[in-house]
């Protein structure tokens, strides 16, 4: 791989120089284009090999070990081959729809994601606002931080009975559980980010006489963006944890309820497939928020 890449790297500048000197024939242009295409493909190939092969090898090994451990008759959990036989439709077709409870896992994940979006979106807005207020006041920080530190350790499921008692309905209860689980890291990280805004920026704002609103939009949010996105990233992870727990108890069409339903009808293979779905979606959510954070705060950290 390395050798091929070296060769094409060396050839391209030569080719371009030659093309610039002589009148450009069609063949020269084609050759240059082919050269750069070859180089790009080589680089892509290299990237794929270094980044995709190790995880693929790991996955194959894991499946093999799993197969060996669970293949013998009377085993309590199904091996990968059994899962493939039992739940092939769930794996291959995320978006089938054969009736009220007989739908693809893609639909279920989307329903769950909708709930997470509402609950987490609310938590993000409220969390950033509260965090900003707390970060600006020593008193509020000292008074509220211990309370938050205690509340944030309460597991998602523990909030559910309280929520059900308060809302007397399962749907707002599920949203509340997501909201209350994911809001703490957002508040705490935002507050820390606001407290860490350099005095220099505050001085600039003071000399310019920025009002509170301008200060919030033009200095606070961008300066604290890296911290805020750390909080949001932890928050989205917790929200995704909470959704499954909440849906198991409140019912509906989400992925969490599907697992509970599968357990009650002894479809172990379906549960395994659902777990993989949840893992992949959680991973995607984490990367999504992390990626947005990296783009938004790309110029904040450096100076």
């Amino acid at each position, binding site marked *: 791989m390395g050798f091929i890449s070296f060769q094409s790297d060396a050839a391209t500048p030569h080719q371009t120089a030659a093309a610039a000197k002589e009148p450009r024939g069609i063949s020269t242009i084609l050759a240059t284009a082919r050269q750069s295409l070859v180089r790009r493909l080589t680089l892509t190939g290299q990237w794929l090999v270094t980044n995709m092969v190790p995880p693929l090898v790991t996955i194959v090994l894991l499946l093999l070990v799993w197969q060996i451990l669970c293949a013998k008759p009377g085993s309590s959990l199904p091996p990968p081959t059994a899962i493939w036989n039992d739940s092939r439709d769930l794996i291959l077709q995320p978006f089938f729809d054969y009736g009220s409870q007989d739908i693809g896992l893609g639909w279920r994940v989307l329903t769950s994601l909708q709930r997470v979006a509402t609950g987490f979106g609310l938590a993000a807005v409220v969390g950033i606002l509260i965090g900003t207020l707390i970060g600006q006041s020593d008193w509020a920080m000292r008074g509220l931080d211990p309370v938050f530190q205690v509340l944030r350790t309460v597991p998602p499921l523990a909030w559910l009975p309280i929520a059900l008692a308060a809302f007397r309905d399962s749907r707002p209860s599920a949203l509340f559980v997501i909201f209350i689980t994911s809001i703490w890291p957002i508040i705490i990280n935002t507050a820390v980010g606001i407290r860490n805004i350099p005095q*220099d920026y505050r*001085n*600039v704002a*003071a*000399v*310019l*006489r920025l009002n509170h609103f301008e200060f919030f939009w033009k200095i606070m949010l961008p300066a604290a963006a890296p911290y805020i996105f750390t909080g949001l990233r932890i928050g989205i992870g917790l929200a995704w944890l909470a959704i499954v727990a909440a849906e198991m108890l409140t019912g509906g069409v989400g992925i969490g309820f599907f697992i509970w339903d599968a357990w009650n009808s002894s479809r172990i293979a379906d549960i395994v497939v659902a777990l993989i779905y949840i893992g992949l979606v959680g991973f995607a959510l984490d990367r999504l928020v992390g990626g947005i954070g990296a783009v938004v*705060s790309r*110029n904040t950290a450096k*100076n």
Partner: protein
Amino acid sequence: MSRFYLKLDRLSKTFTRRGVTSEVLRDIDLGVEKGQFVSIIGHSGCGKSTMLNLVAGLTQASTGGVILDDREVNSPGPDRAVVFQNHSLLPWLTVYANVRLAVDKVFGSAKSRQARHEWTMHNLDLVHMAHAKDKHPSEISGGMKQRVGIARALAMEPKVLLLDEPFGALDALTRAHLQDSLMQIHANLRNTVLMITHDVDEAVLLSDKIVMMTNGPAAHIGEVLTVALPRPRQRLELATDPAYIAAREAVLKFLYQRHRFVEAA
């Protein structure tokens, strides 16, 4: 009514931290005329930065006050624009946007959109930074950042320009370039400037008046030297000018003979 444009009137500042009170500045009296370039020089820790912060309004005086253009000032404002030692550009904004933020805030209602754009570009031109207007602060050198900091301050059209060791963090060659730029700007615009520095050559080269501070605690103005060198001043010609050498010697003597900084030895 005083004849001074900027007047520091019996200014004192004491800080209290954990029950311990320390007096930083005592009875500072200083007058600056319109268009004058005044430097404040002293050893580190003598409270010269505190003095600038008092004028900027970023710190409140314990007693006494600051009068600018016949009005007392005690809170920060764009009429006393500050060029900070570490440039303090907002890293998430481009060079242009950093200056434009100040222009929009100060002239938001007075100038049209187009005029504000032109004023921003004009000030970037003054410091020769128009070519880098779309870069972020992290992409330009320290000297360039400080140029943008100066452009931002100039763009506010301040009554007095406050410079807090503006070239302290720069290498000698860059510093000389920026000093020349600053002299040029001062010659054209006739700004009133108050500059903190610890560089004797810089003070003599740029200033009409050099204010020498005694060491803290309770620092006060030890001596004020008027630098009567004609403008425009040329760095190379001055090197052998007797008046320049005499001024330089006077400041050095004050700093290293009469007010030696003991802890620095």
